[in-house]
């Protein structure tokens, strides 16, 4: 049933609007992880929720058409990559594994944390969307 496109333009438009709004909210959550409520998980999951809403509203085929498997894979890989960069960055900067305050950037803890959060958000979003697509029997992300 979720894979069947809905005919009603009202539904389609509404879900697009809602999805846009949710996606914005997701990004907001994602970027404000260090200063207020939110972070990578929350942002990532909400972003994925936007895609899911879209899929329920406009149909799975049309949703997945927008989703490039390559991009999804890139998203999934982003989190571990961000972690590894920061982790080994800490070592290269003379600190220890995954040490933030030695990184040669301004406000290292804050920005490095933001960076990692972005990676987490990307991975979570990518994974949840992939899972949703695969479980609903849609096109796989290979």
């Amino acid at each position, binding site marked *: 049933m979720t894979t069947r496109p809905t005919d009603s333009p009202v539904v389609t438009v509404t879900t697009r609007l809602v999805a846009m709004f949710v996606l914005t909210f997701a990004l907001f959550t994602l970027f404000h992880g260090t200063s207020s409520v939110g972070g990578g998980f929350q942002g990532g999951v909400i972003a994925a929720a936007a895609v899911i809403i879209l899929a329920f509203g406009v149909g799975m085929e049309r949703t997945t058409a927008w989703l490039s498997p390559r991009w999804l*894979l890139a998203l*999934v*890989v982003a989190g*571990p*990559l961000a972690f*590894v960069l920061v*982790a080994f960055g*800490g*070592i290269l900067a003379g*600190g*220890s*594994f*995954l*040490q*933030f305050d*030695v990184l040669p950037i301004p406000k290292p803890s804050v920005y490095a944390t933001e960076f990692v959060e972005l990676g987490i958000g990307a991975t979570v979003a990518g994974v949840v969307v992939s899972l949703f697509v695969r479980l609903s029997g849609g096109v796989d992300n*290979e």
Partner: protein
Amino acid sequence: MSVLLALVVTVPLVGAVLPLVVGRRTRLSRLLTGGILVVQVGLAVAVAAVVARRGPVSSVVGGLPSEVGIGLVADAVTSAFLLLVACTAVAFFAIVRTDSTRFGDSLWLLLVAGLSGVTVTADVFNLYVFLEISGLAAYALVATGRGAPAALAAFRYLLVGTVGATLYLLGVGYLYVATGTLSMAGLNAALSAIGYDSPLVIASFVLIAVGLGVKIALFPLHTWKPAAYATSPADVSALLATLVSTIAGYALVRLTFGVYTLGFLTDVPAARVGLLVAGAVSVVAGGVLTLRQTDIRRLLAYSSVLQFGLIVVAIGLATPAAVTGALVLLLSHAIAKGGLFASVGILAREFDVKTVADYTGLVRDAPLFTVAASVVFASLVGLPPTAGFAGKWYVALGAVAAESWTIAALVVGSTLLSILYVGRVVETMVFGTPTAGVLGRGGSETGGQSHVSTDGGQLHTQSLTRASLLLAAVGGVVVALGLWSSDLALWFQPVVEGWL
């Protein structure tokens, strides 16, 4: 140096991404995975070398104060299990795994990462995270088996395994509420300060022990194991049989003595009795259930229930000899069982021999296999001079030293339980008269049906040789480990003494 411990986890974890990004190039994926596994062995060797030279190493991720950050630690015992994980993973990957898929390769690495993480972490919550990584990878690996039963077995495994992990998590919660810390060293100190007989501490121990008991597959929490191991592919069942329960058992040892300490077992006799009873019940139930199995891999899985019962009994005894015995048994059982699952799995895959009856008269077609299997089985039974005997000897020594006569009788008598099922298998292999060529070779006068066509003869001979040589190597290892068990015990000694 501190980065070494982090690398042991990070390398396979990040490496697990590589098979995903190479796309459909299966060979490349296999090559990369193999490479990472080799690197992992190197890392484990490095850790062992450092430990040998300087004693235990520890570090805190992120260069934080130890009580704040997540600690990693490696001592003599840790390094032995790290080596076990790394070596087993690469050996079975190279020898037993034939049809790699990139997702499977990735899961393989994730399992290694999770188990290595469980081994080196010094933080009880961090342990949960790695327990879940290894768990998820294991469930999925089981489901890579062909056919419906594999999916169902994996699903049941997932349900039970997740319940176990969640119970463990809840135990961690109780510990945290009682102490306000999650680091093992911090907990060790805090628990003795607040008193071991606090209900929260006892509750946490029960939950953690039951949670890990699921992964260890103690009776009656073993239900996931036989089906999962009997339906998964040869390589997977070998890997899981070697590592999953073993590392959980190691975690139980580590937590019992590193966190709760002997003081807890002394102040709360019920906890010790609980461990002893749980172990004893597993020994007996495992022994009895093993006798009733017809499928060879289910039989092996049930035999693990018996073996881990002994290990838990040894933990409950909590004497230096018994704990040494538990560690030796963990290692020896892992190697023996892994080798058996691998070779038996290869035979099941290539020749469709799956039940004990299928092994009738195997010696004619596969004499080396039969002899090697007998040696490995002897280790499971605990006959000298194998490693299994050494482990049992230490445990029995501990039981006698503690004057726990019932337990001593159980440990010594468990040999008889094992002999019954092992004897049946060996006798079938050696003296049974097959109705047809067992492996579809050599024909038969009665014109019975062979299991496979003779077309793939060459390939089949190869895989039989492979299975036989693997098992022979494992047999050599269990005997060598038995003959060097004193050195192994000496290697563990400082750690065990530190615990007790």
